[in-house]
């Protein structure tokens, strides 16, 4: 593997730079959207104590997004907040799974949010995120490797939290089990692009930006299906109504970005 790259200018000068920036967009956009979706739950949790715990997870994800956008800023791509809030939908690289709404309805008026779907979606994302971060800890781009190690430290709580809940829901009654089964079926039709590496996929692993990227999808599928198998849930067929890694998103992303950037867009040059 090529020697570690620390300096952003040096990274930009490598022929593999497009693969690095593509990877960083995926990382940043994934966490931004999953963090946004989790933040919509704030104040509406199913149990008071849980509302508080899930709020920490939402903050962690948004904080991870901020870290990645700052890495992009250091690479001269623009200001972190502009990158998070002003880029058009076609440039977004998050998976469709994380942009999907928590349920019907607006978060501030009459939200009919689905807690089972929220947990299943986040669980699928955590599983992938952890595999991805484990690889990124060895990234050739040193600032990314350091960020990944710090972020990975917070992910164990997320995964354990989601699993604790799913275990409870799957083993305590037919109604909650049925809700989780429906949520798995729904999420399976959205998560097809989660493990897609995008247009520069091969270079991501070959250039050492993300060692192990080429096996990440298979490892993820195995981890998820082994978890589901513990509860006698059949492995689902993974598909997706588009491909977020290639900028082909659902209309839900437009709506999410409009909310997320509503205030900032009033005056992106102002101090907020």
């Amino acid at each position, binding site marked *: 593997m090529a020697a570690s790259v620390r300096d952003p200018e040096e990274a930009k000068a490598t022929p593999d730079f497009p693969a690095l920036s593509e990877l960083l967009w995926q990382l940043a956009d994934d966490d931004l959207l999953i963090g946004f979706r989790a933040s919509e739950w704030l104040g509406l949790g199913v149990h008071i104590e849980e509302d*508080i715990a899930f709020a*920490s997870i939402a903050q962690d994800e948004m904080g991870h997004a901020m870290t990645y956008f700052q890495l992009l800023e250091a690479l001269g791509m623009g200001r972190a907040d502009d990158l998070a809030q002003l880029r058009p939908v076609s440039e977004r690289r998050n998976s469709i799974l994380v942009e999907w709404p928590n349920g019907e309805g607006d978060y501030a008026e009459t939200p009919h949010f689905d807690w089972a779907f929220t947990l299943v979606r986040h669980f699928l994302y955590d599983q992938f995120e952890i595999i991805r971060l484990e690889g990124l800890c060895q990234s050739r781009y040193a600032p990314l490797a350091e960020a990944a190690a710090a972020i990975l430290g917070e992910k164990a709580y997320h995964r354990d939290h989601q699993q604790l809940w799913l275990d409870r829901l799957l083993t305590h009654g037919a109604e909650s089990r049925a809700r989780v089964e429906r949520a798995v079926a729904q999420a399976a039709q959205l998560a097809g692009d989660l493990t897609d590496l995008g247009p520069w996929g091969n270079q991501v692993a070959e250039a050492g930006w993300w060692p192990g990227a080429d096996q990440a999808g298979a490892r993820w599928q195995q981890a998820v299906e082994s978890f589901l198998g513990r509860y006698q849930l059949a492995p689902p067929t993974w598909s997706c109504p588009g491909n977020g890694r290639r900028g082909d998103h659902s209309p839900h992303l437009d709506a999410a970005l409009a909310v997320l950037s509503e205030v900032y867009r009033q005056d992106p040059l102002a101090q907020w």
Partner: protein
Amino acid sequence: MDRLTFDIYEVFAQTDPLAPHQHQFSLLASSPEMALALAQENFLRRREIYSIWVVRRDAITQSGPAERARFYRRKKGYRTTEDYRYLVEKWRRYKQQPMTPETMV
């Protein structure tokens, strides 16, 4: 509709290896594992955590109001350094004028 009843867990936490477990607060949870997961973010968001205990409240035997009144005790200086303050003055004297076999007689 049936009323839902939850177990109450008391939460204790240690902030570093040498600190005692200190009571934090209580919460409603479904299992000890869930109580642990919730306790971390409910009561310790801004603190270093080294260890957390959760205990179902009904597993705790607690002294009650009657015991609180009985916890009164007289002052017991002999259990503390308080009764031995005179030693300072004595050591000072012995430093100036050490004991010798002659003075000991």
